[in-house]
């Protein structure tokens, strides 16, 4: 592996709230190589945003170290800021501002000349399809348009590393798909290292090369989505005409090595490696034994299954608990 562009050692962050200490991030060791597209996946409050805020110099770590682009996030914070692009949860552009003005002033803050700044702004306005909106107050833009502007602002200086904090939260499916396309394109064309946080399983699954699953402030899994899922088997659901047939089906399925079988009335659920290959044989066998399968469904494992397997909780359900909003700490 080449020298990592992000490297953390024992990265820790505590918050004090109502005299209680909340350990938002607990001893994170992480390395990200140049050109990776990494998703931090976890439920709300897992510590993924806190981690991102430490990596982007918004929040000093309580303990441990982090280097981004070769610079320590505490001691060399200005160099880190010059090297990274950041798209936060809120809007990068001030609501009273015009999009074009914000692009120009962001470019100027990186030391571009007036002419360069204007050229760069126009380039990004065209690339992000904001020609009609760039001259209007940001407050009048739609959510999707603002998000495109946010990403454009984050890319003004063509950063080597781009951080996105929950980029697609609050976007409708169409805009979310567009944003994901932009991110993957940026990664493919520029080789930009991209780190994003998300609690959308599908998002992590479709766009990231590598998924870092974070829960309660620690990394509980770190691999490609495919490999994370391949450790789990496929899910085979069989429907039978009667309880007796279903019982027979469950017994037969349980004889497969490694299979985990559950039965619910006339339905049998089998979690087993290579389930999609085994299913046909299972159905034929049961037909011979006089317990015909009436319905069959084979589902590949999802990242939610991975999360469930690791924590005993479903990520989808964890996200529905309203009080778990991510701790932003004293910043903001």
């Amino acid at each position, binding site marked *: 592996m080449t020298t990592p562009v992000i490297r953390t050692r024992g990265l820790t962050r505590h918050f004090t709230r109502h005299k209680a200490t909340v350990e938002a991030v607990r001893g994170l060791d992480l390395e990200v190589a140049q050109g990776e597209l990494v998703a931090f996946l976890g439920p709300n409050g897992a510590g993924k945003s806190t981690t991102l805020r430490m990596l982007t110099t918004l929040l000093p770590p309580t303990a441990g170290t982090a280097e981004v682009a070769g610079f320590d996030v505490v001691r060399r914070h200005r160099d880190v800021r010059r090297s990274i692009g950041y798209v936060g949860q*809120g809007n990068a552009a001030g609501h009273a501002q015009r999009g074009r003005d914000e692009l120009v002033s*962001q470019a100027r803050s990186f030391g571009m000349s007036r002419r360069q700044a204007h050229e760069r702004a126009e380039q990004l306005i065209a690339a992000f399809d904001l020609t009609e909106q760039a001259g209007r107050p940001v407050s009048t833009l739609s959510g999707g348009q603002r998000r495109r502007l946010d990403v454009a602002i984050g890319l003004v200086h*063509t950063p080597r590393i781009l951080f996105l904090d929950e980029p697609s939260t609050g976007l409708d499916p169409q805009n979310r798909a567009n944003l994901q396309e932009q991110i993957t*394109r940026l990664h493919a064309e520029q080789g930009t290292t991209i780190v994003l946080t998300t609690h959308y399983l599908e998002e992590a699954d479709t766009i990231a090369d590598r998924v870092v699953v974070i829960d309660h402030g620690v990394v509980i899994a770190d691999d490609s989505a495919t490999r994370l899922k391949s450790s789990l088997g496929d899910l085979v659901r069989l429907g039978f005409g009667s309880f007796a047939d279903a019982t027979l089906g469950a017994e037969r399925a349980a004889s497969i090595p490694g299979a985990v079988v559950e039965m619910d009335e006339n339905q049998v659920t089998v979690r087993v490696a290579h389930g999609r290959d085994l299913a046909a044989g299972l159905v034929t066998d049961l037909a011979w034994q006089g317990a015909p399968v009436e319905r069959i469904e084979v589902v590949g494992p999802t990242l939610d299954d991975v999360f469930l397997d690791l924590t005993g909780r479903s990520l989808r359900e964890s996200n529905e608990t309203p009080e778990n909003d991510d701790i932003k700490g004293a910043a903001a």
Partner: protein
Amino acid sequence: MTTYADKGSLTLSTRRDRDMARPAPGLVADTWNVMVRELRPVFREPASVLFAMVQPLVFLGLFAPLLPKVEDGSALQWFVPGIVAMTALMGASFTGANLTQEIVTGSHERLLVSPLSRSSLLVGRALKEVVPMLMQAAIIVVVVTPFSFDLHLAHVLVGVVLLSLFSIGVGALSFALALAAKDQDWLFWTVQQTLIFPVLLLAGVLLPLQGAPGWLRTASDLNPLTYVIEAERALFAGTLPAGTVLAGFAASALVAAFGLWVGLRTMRRSS
């Protein structure tokens, strides 16, 4: 919605390390950038500026007819510098209001991750309030000059420099207040409103404090704005009493230094 596959490339040049090769803008350039950014919406919306400009004139128009006749010189000569100072203080104390909005919507966070230095974010925003103040002062002076007001331009310019210094301090304090209040804008407004009127009245902006009881005079003596107003009145009258003017500058410098210190400290603590 379109897709983006057919759009132009996202890079400006092919050199990867270009961003690091570029020299870092200094504090002055950063501060200028922040100030210009803050001023842009103001100039893009000239109607809003005009409205803000007219306010002190309304105040002046409704208050000046009530001023008593005085033997030595005109009451207007005494009243105008107070109104100019009040306008400056009001404007500067609103600095944090914009910040509160930007904290809530997220653009403040973007600026924190940008290479702009913390102090430029603070000073740039505070300076932004000086520009409308200069314009307001100019309008007020232009409007009152045909009446019983003698314009001493050089003296007024010195007075404006003095007020700018004071405004930077107040702007920085307002900024710190907004950071401390975070996203609770009611808290910002409550504190701002609670403080601003006593400060104005104790400085004798609207009524002279000559006949005031002792405790009121002591409170007034402790108010830095009192010295600023006294200096402004002397300057607007075309005089240059060294002691009074220096006291005004000392008070302004004190407020500016204190404001910047508190502002920077609050900023470092909050991130």
